[in-house]
């Protein structure tokens, strides 16, 4: 079929000026909505104990899916997507404590606190809050934090911010001794 260029003796290159069909844009709505409930959101709802691993992973996965639809033949992006899928699968890098651990932390009653006691994370006196919710980490009696401040950290890390002691290691009880209680021989049987 004769094109416009043929008819008018124009160099064929002018066809390349036609804009390439737009690639579909990745749909990021899922990714951002999954981020909006990021681990920094503090909650005392014990039913939410499944995150952060699951949540971060699903965010990675949804980001990967969103981009997958919009690229073709771009090696860099493809390898990035593979990486995201991998991270989503394993939830790699997110190793925090569960909600149960946070619930079990020792509470510091208000009457034990003085004006000069500040949370090392927000640097604010505990008593500025009329109803301070303060917890003590098991590593040291002076390591106290607002529950609201320490929760997002411990959901992603298992260490005390002040001494980097792994709190999960200290809490894990030694494996119970294997009971080698043999079944009583019943010589009346058989």
């Amino acid at each position, binding site marked *: 079929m004769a094109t416009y260029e043929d008819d008018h003796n124009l160099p064929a290159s002018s066809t390349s000026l036609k804009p390439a069909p737009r690639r579909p844009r990745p749909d990021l709505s899922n990714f951002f909505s999954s981020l909006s409930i*990021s681990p*920094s959101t503090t909650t005392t709802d014990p039913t939410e104990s499944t995150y952060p691993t699951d949540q971060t992973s699903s965010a990675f996965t949804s980001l990967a899916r969103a981009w997958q639809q919009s690229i073709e033949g771009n090696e860099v992006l493809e390898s990035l997507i593979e990486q995201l899928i991998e991270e989503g699968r394993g939830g790699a890098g997110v190793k925090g404590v569960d909600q149960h651990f946070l619930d079990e932390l020792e509470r510091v009653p208000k009457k034990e606190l003085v004006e000069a006691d500040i949370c*090392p*994370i*927000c*640097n*604010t006196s505990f008593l500025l809050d009329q109803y301070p919710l303060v917890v003590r980490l098991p590593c040291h009696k002076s390591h106290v934090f607002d529950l609201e*401040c320490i929760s*997002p*950290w411990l959901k*992603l890390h298992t*260490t005390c*911010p*002040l001494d*980097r002691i792994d709190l999960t290691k200290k809490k894990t009880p030694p494996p119970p001794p294997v009971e080698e209680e043999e079944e009583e021989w019943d010589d009346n049987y058989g």
Partner: protein
Amino acid sequence: MALPKRIIKETERLVAEPVPGIQAIPHDDNLRYFDVSIHGPAQSPYEGGVFKLELFLPEDYPMTPPKIRFLTKIYHPNIDRLGRICLDVLKANWSPALQIRTILLSIQALLGAPNPDDPLANDVAQRWKEDEPGAIATAREWTQTHAAP
């Protein structure tokens, strides 16, 4: 989004009680972005130099570390040519109990005690190990050329 109270408090204290030899000033239009200058420590090849850095507090700070980069060219085994810094507390050893102030002090200390066994700038670290006096002389020259106050 409103600036967390902690960042406001840190900024106020940085201005009211500055660390000797360290300056950190937030941008007017972005209070998470700081212009930093660090004086090279005495008795180091960086003595007499003033080094400019940029510091950015990410959205989830202090759960994640600040992002910091040297803007002034510097010859140091733990700082690459893009100004990126190899320092444990800026990565795996970050803790939310650390602050802008403590991190900048760590960077100043890193200038006083280069660690060529944990390099970021491999060629610099290599030279530091093979010819320390030569490497220190280069660091001193670079300080005079690039970090003159």
